[in-house]
């Protein structure tokens, strides 16, 4: 017991190390946070001037209108309605394609965790997650643009984005299903409920908030995708709701505005719109996930 003073000595040094580590963590996290705050600040300040009712209900202006408005120091007329409707159209169709397939594959993986086929699916899904989005755009171009719609189309964009969503939905479905206590499944089986009804009437309803979290996260991930849409949906200056026709999307519009020196202001406004949209989706899915976790404790 004579070593006690030595221990208190090293306690002091440990204390110092603790403080050093703590300070460096705070500094490093500030370095990460500050640029994010600047980015958001810059987007809000530059983008807010163009946000008005027209921005949401009118299609994008042409270069001449924008130039005239700039010369007269007015706000640029028109908005991004063609982009908003296009984004909704493409994302909804992509979700309709990806959600059922993804959830079914996820349930398969959960029910057969160790089969060789499951391992293969998991590997492929991981590879798919690593495929650059522009490559998926090329695939959408080859499959749909060239063979199905014979021209650029919203459908082609949806297919490319659906492939992007798949791995995330598969993963989140499997993880959510794993969180359902086994007793719940057994309770259903013990009443003689057949397998498919257990999945449809017990497992999916019990995990609905977890499943929607996964879906919302994958949607917010594809909302900002630009590259695959350039090769598939192409863009359109009018509001289009036909999935076999070229369609615009908010990120595509941002790219178009960027390439036109008269419309740079609209780049900021569109970015602000996209940012708020994606952020709110993320917040909603975060809330849902929290609800899912607390719901399980009971």
């Amino acid at each position: 017991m004579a070593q006690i003073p030595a221990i208190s000595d090293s306690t002091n040094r440990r204390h110092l190390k603790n403080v050093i580590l703590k300070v460096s963590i705070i500094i490093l996290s500030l370095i990460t946070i500050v640029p994010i705050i600047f980015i958001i600040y810059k987007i809000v300040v530059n983008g807010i001037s163009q946000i008005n009712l027209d921005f949401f209900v009118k299609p994008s202006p042409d270069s001449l209108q924008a130039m005239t408005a700039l010369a007269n120091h007015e706000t640029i007329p028109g908005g991004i309605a063609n982009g908003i409707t296009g984004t909704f159209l493409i994302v909804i169709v992509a979700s309709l394609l990806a959600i059922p397939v993804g959830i079914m594959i996820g349930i398969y993986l959960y029910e057969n965790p160790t089969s060789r086929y499951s391992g293969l699916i998991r590997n492929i899904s991981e590879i798919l997650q690593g495929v650059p989005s522009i490559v998926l755009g090329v695939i959408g171009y080859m499959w749909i643009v060239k063979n199905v719609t014979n021209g650029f189309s919203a459908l082609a964009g949806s297919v490319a984005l659906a492939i992007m969503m798949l791995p995330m939905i598969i993963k989140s479905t499997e993880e959510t299903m794993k969180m359902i206590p086994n007793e719940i499944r057994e309770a259903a089986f013990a009443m003689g409920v057949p397998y498919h009804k257990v999945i449809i009437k017990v497992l999916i309803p019990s995990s609905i908030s977890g499943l929607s979290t996964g879906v919302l996260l994958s949607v917010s991930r594809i909302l900002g995708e630009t590259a695959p849409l350039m090769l598939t949906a192409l863009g359109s200056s009018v509001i289009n709701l036909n999935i076999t026709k070229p369609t615009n999307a908010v990120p595509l519009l941002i790219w178009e505005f960027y390439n036109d020196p008269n419309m740079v202001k609209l780049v900021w406004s569109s970015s602000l719109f996209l940012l708020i949209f994606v952020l709110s989706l993320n917040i909603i899915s975060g809330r849902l996930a929290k609800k899912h976790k607390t719901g399980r404790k009971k």
Partner: protein
Amino acid sequence: MTETQLNINNPILKVRDLSISYEIGKQAVKGINATIESKAITAIMGPSGCGKSTLLRAFNRMHELYPNITTEGSILLHDMDIREMSTINLRRKIGMVFQRPNPFPTMNIYENVLAGYKLNGIKLRRSERDEIVEKSLSDVTLWDEVKDSLFKKGTFLSGGQQQRLCIARAIAFNPDVLLLDEPTSALDPVATAKVEDLLVKLKEEYTVLLVTHNMSQAARISDNSMFMYLGELVEYGKTDIMFTNPKDSRTEGYLTGKFG
């Protein structure tokens, strides 16, 4: 071991040379023969891993959910081989309650009681539904506690109430046999006492099979007891006789706390 020492006048279930293995060459249940008395509580005791839960699950073929399981021998319900019955019919006649209360989290109390009908797509008239819910909840002495909150989620009840709700869900099908797999091991003493009282009451209408590793519980409420060890049915007899005068030294060792 051959036929049991027990003389049973009104048998409901007969187990004949039942062996169950999870892997080839590894038997969890070894050649069990037993006859279960109708409208009585039969306790299945034994140390962990002795195959008591597997035996219990074999009665409504829940053990078949595990992969690679092989079953030899047979179980007869009213002299009919349970493997010739459809699982839905079998599990309507033989209900099950689990160790941890497991009401369906997405359903309210009312729906939970009717879950068996609902999930199997059996249509009932509203009056029938109300009657089944009231009778089942009254049978488990839960009606007075929840009659004003029938449409709240079952997961808001206390653990003991949830377990009684699960028993109500099992008896809503009006089964012949109730299987209970350590139904009180997740409950506090007060809730345990309530469930035990309930089981004693339920045996007037149902045959109760109870897996427990709580020996005093078996002594308190069961009529007949089975003692299992390493997959074998070591001893089966009247509970009061078995607890006071066990025939097998392994039973005696377990009851006196030498192993298990």
